[in-house]
């Protein structure tokens, strides 16, 4: 009788183990989906920012005739971001855009007429709001990636992750050099 009980316990344990593994697998899939979703949410905002930049440059062009280089830097940064592939490259390209825009907004201080232009003010507000949202969603994305990366290195998830060759995901983080503040030269 004891043997039978042990056998039943063993069967139950095996069944429980299989179900648990399925649960872990589903959990990891959910985490991956969370990351994809979080990235999509950032991507939407990045595209919105990319769409706003040409409008912003166009408004500024009329007033900032002596700042052609700065404006070109902004356009170039946008082009670079559009071409960037891979999480690291994209993060760096976005950081470059942020720097370029920061430089542009700083230079606007020299142009009171532009500062008073309603179109410019509207665009500036919009771009700034988008940047704030990107920062929040980047934080959210990195938290999602972090959850996933921790989970696939923890026991017992590590066994399922290794079996399925799940690898760590990259954070949305720009290189240190790309995040340096821009030097503004006021004329």
């Amino acid at each position, binding site marked *: *009788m004891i043997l039978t009980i042990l056998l039943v316990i063993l069967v139950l344990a095996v069944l429980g183990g299989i179900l648990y593994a399925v*649960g872990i697998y589903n*959990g990891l899939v959910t985490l991956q989906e*969370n990351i994809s979703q979080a990235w999509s949410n950032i991507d939407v905002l990045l595209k919105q920012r990319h769409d706003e930049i040409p409008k912003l440059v166009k408004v500024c062009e009329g007033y900032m005739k002596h700042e052609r280089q700065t404006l070109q830097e902004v356009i170039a940064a946008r082009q670079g971001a559009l071409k960037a592939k891979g999480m690291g490259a994209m993060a760096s390209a976005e950081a470059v855009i942020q720097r370029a825009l920061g430089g542009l907004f700083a230079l606007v201080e020299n142009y009171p007429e532009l500062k008073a232009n309603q179109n410019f003010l509207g665009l500036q507000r919009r771009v700034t709001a988008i940047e704030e949202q990107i920062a*929040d*969603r980047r934080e*959210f994305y990195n938290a*999602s990636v972090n*959850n996933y990366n921790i989970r696939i290195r923890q026991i017992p998830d590590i066994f399922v992750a290794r079996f399925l060759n799940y690898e760590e995901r990259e954070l949305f983080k720009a290189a240190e050099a790309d995040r340096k503040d821009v030097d503004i030269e006021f004329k």
Partner: protein
Amino acid sequence: MSTVGSKNPALEKTGRHFLVLLVSPDYGTDLDRHIEKIVSITDLQHWDVRQKFLRHGITSLMISDTEDDLQRISHALKTAGYQSTVLDEGIIKQQPLPRRAVAVESSDSSIAFLDRNGQMILGLGKNSRYIIVVGDLAHESISLAKLQQRAKAGVLADGELLTEPVLRIFVEREETGVLIVGNRFNYGSMGSKAGISVGVNFRHMVTTLQKLGADVVLEDGFGFADQLPITVTSAEWVGQRLAAFEVHARVAKVLWSRGLALARAPAVQEHPVQGPPPIEQAPLQEPLSLYKRSTDFAQQIGPLKLVLPLIATALLFTALLGAVPILQAPLAMNIGVLGLLWAHTNWRRKRAIEDFPTSKVRSLAMGKVEVIGRAAQMLELRAPFSQVDCVWYRAELQRKMPMQDGSHRWRRVRTIHSGDLPFYLEDDTGRILVDPVHANININTRQIIHPAVASADGLLAAGMSSDMRCVESYIAVGSTLYVMGTAMPMRSTEGQDREELLKRLRRLKQDKAALAEFDADGNGRIDEDEWAMAVAATRQDLLKDSLLRKQVRDRTVIGKGGKESLFIIADHDERHLLWSLTLRVWLGIILGFSSILVGVFLTLYLVRLA
């Protein structure tokens, strides 16, 4: 604001209002036509009705008078500012002293519903307001044979029962709110459980009401208009055989126009009027998988409540059958499986919370979200007993029951609930609307109030005596709020023009000439009902102005998503929530495995005996 139905000057004086509503069965038609109709006859806003429909997945109106539809309607009414309650069978069951009325007696001053012994169950007297809602005939026609049997057996005393349209009538005293009553109860259960329901001759009933000077409004979806001695106010609708929604919307309109609805812009009153809270709503039933149903069921009732009766049954059988555990083995197995299912549900919930990062309100994306912040009111609400400003409350009235050993226990008498009023969640970056319909609300804040301690008006309103107490839970304004749900766009103006409304009302209060327009009885002062009319008219004007200025904006709301099963609202932080879920997981595992082992052991024992 126009009123519906005939106005009886005598009635206006006495303040008696009777509303008889015949709920028509479902007839499908296109959504837009319905929305337009609803908007034209109510104070509901077009986009509000539309978005409610769409959010609940109603793209064409084939709504029947089922409880789900009533819940939706009720919610739409609430969102539009009406006080609305859906009464379901669960509530009916809670009614004390089940008695069935089998006769109706009328005099010059009242109508009495009598039971078989001639005792009055319910009296409709002067100076009270009642709403009478009459269900449809569909069920009665099905159970006609049953009715005939009952009539033969003398259970139904009304002699004309089978020669006239027989309707189920539900009578509920409800002085302050819109009452919508479902018609899914069968004749027998209504009679035996409600204690205030009656099978009665409809013509007799209506005639009596009219003799009393009652203002009777009938929605007749069955072609009985010719047979009934009353004015049918909606012949056009009858012709079109409209769905129940319109009927309910019309009720709201009637009640609103008579000042019976609670939506009286409480924010402009220095001391908000706290009417009796609505009776607790039953949770909505959604189509669920068998698996989800079982896990949800296990979770809802909790492991102990589930297991204790089963264990008690097992012990009883053991005592009766001796030591042979015939039933205990499968019983233990079942308990074990349920315990594990319960653990699994909580484990999934825990993982979902753990694995999902918190968003900021400012950058909230559509879809599944987790937000932490503080609770803020959209509509003024106060917990009825503790008088705490809150966004949600639930209060359980309990009565002290003496036990044989001299001790006592508290038995639930009634549960009241703030309903599904939306509220805001605020964090450092902004605020967002939360629509708590279908939410799993997890509240730690709890207060026990005894009549001797509290002297709130609410205690009297709830009929609380000295042997009763109230256990009240609430989400206080400013308290920590955790919400995991689905963010979705919402097109509405709810609360947007609140400031402007308050400004206009203040202006109106100072403008005596304008105020005089709302002095319906011409007595030179504005009473509560007249003020409600003034608020409604101001709100309408504001709405029109808003539309003209195109101030309607897209907004986001957190609610129950179509695909996401999780919608949690808690008044504590994530850590506490996870801790309680972890505890449940372990409880479920221990209970589940130990019960299964006991079951296996007992099975083997039986096999050995055999």
